[in-house]
């Protein structure tokens, strides 16, 4: 029902620590994966992407790891900052159709 969606998994970290957000995807044929960040009152914002023929990709302070064997995706944020507080969604795409996973709320404690 309505209450299920309100209970987002929450990850609470101390400022300066590294964060790891995990995601399980469903479609083994998906060829492209994306992490989005969504702050309150805003639309999802692109963070980093990875193609299915890769297992790791790094950006500025972020790294995405892809394990196709167990259909698992993770987002690592180095030196987490208060501005990183948001809901993070993984998404998979095949033939242009983007499917979002359930989000994780990241709370950064000062």
């Amino acid at each position: 029902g309505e209450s299920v969606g309100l209970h987002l998994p929450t990850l609470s970290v101390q400022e300066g620590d590294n964060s790891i957000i995990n995601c399980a995807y469903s479609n083994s044929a998906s060829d492209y994966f994306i992490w989005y960040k969504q702050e309150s009152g805003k639309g999802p914002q692109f963070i980093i992407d990875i193609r299915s023929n890769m297992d790791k990709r790094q950006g500025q302070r972020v790294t995405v790891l892809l394990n196709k064997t167990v259909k698992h995706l993770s987002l690592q944020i180095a030196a987490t900052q208060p501005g990183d507080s948001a809901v993070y969604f993984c998404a998979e795409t095949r033939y242009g159709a983007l499917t979002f996973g359930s989000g994780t709320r990241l709370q950064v404690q000062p």
Partner: protein
Amino acid sequence: EAGVVQSPRYKIIEKKQPVAFWCNPISGHNTLYWYLQNLGQGPELLIRYENEEAVDDSQLPKDRFSAERLKGVDSTLKIQPAELGDSAVYLCASSLGDRASTDTQYFGPGTRLTVL
């Protein structure tokens, strides 16, 4: 460069009333998407346009929802009549459209609809 623009940002209506949302995509983006986002959940695709053609509307509840993108640029999404369960955030996104499965989608801020 301006991002995806949506209006209105907020809309409160009574059930059974009609409502419309407007979206202007990033300049040069051929593909436009409408998503619905319920509280605490990820966005769900309603319809995807490539230029003015709706190429995926399989998740659009066609009995009450309609959409158009007449000139292949901006788009409107309409609900008539609105029901209580339509309360959600309606997101518009756009992408270049030149690489189907790896196009980055850029989202607008959304329209928060409340149906009373």
